[in-house]
């Protein structure tokens, strides 16, 4: 009896399993539809060799978002870029984020948008607010719109309500908040995910006031953020703890992952990070447990099958106030209309050919290697056959038929 009960439950479980899966996919479907393009702004505000880890942090993030499909044209990378070719670097041209040297972060195409002394507070604010002089290149601009989700990652040395830029100046939390407000005013984002890894990082998002911003910081006020480990060969720390565990989590993500930002936040524990990670959700509409990681870190493009209706159908025009429906058959494709209009005045020999309804063949016409020639349109084949016959007759008269036809096809 008990076994039968278990069996019944098991059956019920198996019966319900596909439904739960389907629900999950449906939720994911809905989540995809909210945005159509994702952008990433990745900033390392430090320079000099001893800040190697900040460069590694930001390059690791760059690698992750690129792996998940955000194109380079939608990634803005700001870094001082002075460690890869630093004379103290034992591995010239390489940047590693782990002492096992498994991944060279500087390896394949890294497109840095702002490097060296271009990494300034002014440029950062200009980037967010998109206020530039006219000759500023398009590739260095944040061309977002109301459908864009933006992931902003910052790392460097910070303090209470400020973040240093290259030991020369500092940005205040109010400045970032105001810049976000200006973006919001001009509808330049759908949602922003702000992540910051500095000392006292949580103070940096405390002043935000614009809607639809989710923020996470690595440490509380009066608390430091720590580096993860040093590399003996490189001689300095190579990555920060917060970023390290963040990447550790993101490595398991691929484009069809259903993990959410809440899963990411749950993975941050004091034992791992050694500081109190803060999350600010009050400005954000959605619950982080409903926000897929891929909503910010990846570029998942909706694809709608377009084969529901046949190409250029005739359709029925419904007449109101009349019992019968009158049938209007005409080519419904706008291209025909355009062609018709265009050629109405220009009476060329091509018109007939173009306006004729297409009965296109599936065959790719020319395959030079195999010398196969197939013709899709009768007209064209007729004229070409005529040319062939004349050519063959011509070559036959010259007496070397086989070579001639071969020449004809290969030339």
């Amino acid at each position, binding site marked *: 009896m008990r076994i039968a009960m278990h069996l019944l439950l098991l059956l019920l479980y198996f019966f319900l399993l596909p439904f739960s899966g389907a629900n999950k996919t449906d939720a*994911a479907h809905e989540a*995809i539809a909210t945005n*159509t*393009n994702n952008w990433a702004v990745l900033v390392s505000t430090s320079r000099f060799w001893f800040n190697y880890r900040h460069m590694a942090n930001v390059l690791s993030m760059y690698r992750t978002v*690129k792996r998940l*499909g955000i*194109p380079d*044209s939608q990634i803005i990378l700001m870094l001082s870029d002075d460690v890869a070719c630093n004379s103290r670097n034992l591995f010239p041209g390489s940047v590693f984020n782990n002492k096992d040297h498994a991944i060279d972060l500087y390896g394949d195409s890294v497109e840095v948008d702002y490097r060296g002394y271009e990494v300034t507070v002014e440029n950062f604010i*200009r980037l967010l607010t998109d*206020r530039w002089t006219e000759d500023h*290149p*398009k*590739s260095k601009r944040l*061309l977002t719109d*109301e*459908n864009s989700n933006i992931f902003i990652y910052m790392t460097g040395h910070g303090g209470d309500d400020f973040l240093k830029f290259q030991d020369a100046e500092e940005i205040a939390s*109010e*400045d970032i908040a*105001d810049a976000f*407000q*200006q973006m919001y*005013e*001009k509808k330049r984002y759908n949602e922003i995910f702000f992540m910051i890894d500095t000392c006292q990082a949580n103070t940096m998002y405390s002043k935000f006031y614009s809607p639809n911003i989710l923020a996470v910081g690595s440490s509380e006020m009066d608390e430091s953020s720590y580096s993860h480990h040093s590399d003996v060969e490189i001689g300095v720390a190579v990555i920060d703890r917060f970023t390290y565990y963040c990447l550790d989590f993101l490595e398991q993500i691929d*484009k069809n992952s259903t993990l959410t930002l809440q899963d990411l936040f749950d993975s941050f524990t004091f034992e791992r990070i050694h500081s109190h990670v803060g999350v600010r959700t009050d400005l954000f509409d959605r619950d982080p447990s409903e926000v897929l990681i891929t909503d910010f870190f990846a*570029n*998942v*493009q*909706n*694809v*709608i*099958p*377009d*084969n529901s209706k*046949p*190409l250029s159908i*005739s*359709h029925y*025009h419904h007449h*109101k*106030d*009349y019992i019968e429906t*009158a049938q209007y058959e*005409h080519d419904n*494709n*706008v*291209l025909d209309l*355009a062609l018709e*209009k*265009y050629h109405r005045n220009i009476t060329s020999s091509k018109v007939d050919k*173009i306006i004729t*309804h*297409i*009965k*296109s*063949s*599936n065959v*790719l*016409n020319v395959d030079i*290697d195999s010398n196969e020639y197939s013709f*899709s349109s009768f007209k064209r084949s007729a004229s070409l056959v005529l040319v062939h016959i004349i050519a063959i007759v011509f070559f036959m008269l010259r007496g070397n038929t086989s070579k001639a036809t071969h020449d004809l096809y290969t030339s």
Partner: protein
Amino acid sequence: MSNANLRKWVGFCFIAIYIFVGIPLWYKLTTVYRAPLPVKYIESLQKNKFQDIHLVIPVYVRSDTYRFPDIHDAIQVQVNHLLNSQEQQIPWSLQVLPYNESMQQANSEDNQFHVVTLVLDDFIGYSSAYDTKETIVYYDDAAVLSNDLPFFVAQTLVEHTFQLEWTHLNKTHESATTNNNVAISYDPNIHLSITLLSGDGNPVAWEIEPTLTDYFSPFRKLLSPLVNLTVDSSIVYHNDLNLHSLNGSYSNVTWFDLSHTIDLSELSSMTYYPEDSALNLAVVFPSASSTPDGLAFINGTRISDGLSALDWNSYLVPQWGVIIINKMPLKPNSVISEDYLEPMMYRFASDIFQLLGLTEGSQDLLSPYITIDSFKRLTTLQNLDKSVETLWSLVKLTQQFQGMSIPHEVSDNVLEALDLRFQIIDLLNDPGKGGDMVWNNALHLSNELVKLCETAFFNGEMVQQNFFPQEHMIAVYLPLLGPISAVMFFGFYNVMKEKDHKNEKNGIEREVTEEKLELKEAQNLHAIDGENEL
């Protein structure tokens, strides 16, 4: 003048220069320039964006069989009645006019007007012409006798010919910005990037140039009043948009799988074009090495006559473009012929209408000319709305950030934009104007208006760190102005003090001399007799 007086004057001069020249100069040099903006006016515009707009579309009535001398007035009454039955968000109306000789001359190929033709027939009905802006209304004698004709015409016009206006301009319609997710936001200049992708590295060619000349140039011409399309084409090898990872696993690939597999990152490089928005057409052939038998999930596209099916499927990527996936890989050295590309052009042409927002979903385009015409008007109104929003955002920001400078160009741009807005409204409101030219012109001007407003909003000089802590101010000004001020005021104080001291000294001297004088007088009077009295 004595030495003391001179010092006094110099001290005064220093203080006067400090107060009357130094402080104003310092104030002038340190305040940010904020050009005045017509804040009040923009605010009132934002509160009621369409306060001065009343869109009027002229419609001409033509009757071939019977002569109805007053039918246009009768239709007008019915149209007004119908339009008033619905609360309008943006006021609009139709101006029904008789079709006459002069009208016939003005109505040319390039400058068409809306015409309603009344045709006597056995039944009552209507049809919209496919290639002109004409609406034909069929009526029978019974309708004329019962005087129903004006109502039929009015209903046809409002609910069918001007259906887009009827639905979009009423109160219940959602705001224009929340359009469907497929269409890109309107931009007068759009770049079109056509790419052939082959999974292999074997050389391939395609007859894209003649195809574009034959099919796409006329299409561009049709759309030219709306958008200016610039086209480029390219061939990309060794890229099948990651389709090879789908093959073999299952033949029943859903769009969900596709959207997670397809990798468009190499094609989404809109930064290389000067245009602000871009659409793409990607024609993909799978790789022969990984998918020798073709992609299983491609089941072909039917053509209407049902004779043959094409060997590719097309997919719409919202706000990006169209992907056409071919089933079979390309043989080496293939040339893709114009005939093969032709149906793709047909498919792409109808998809562009969706991507531009002219049609929604799989809805058919019944009368493209009327749709395009309505689209022009709606876009013009949208542009007006958008520009007022931008101006309002600008005003809000400048008020919120008092430390932000407002250059003179911004105020110039704003004033110019407001002037332009009036010009557009004049065009829209004039019942006498309503040909293609007028709508084209209005659309063109409204695009300029949007651009002007954006230029004002995104002015490069309006950037600064808005937040300056008080300590920063002290840190900057104290080392500079502190020493000067200190020297100035203490010096002045000293000069003043010196003068007082001298006065005091004089007073004592005067007292002494006075005493001496008194003494002398007393001696002269012999008032002092004995030595003891001294």
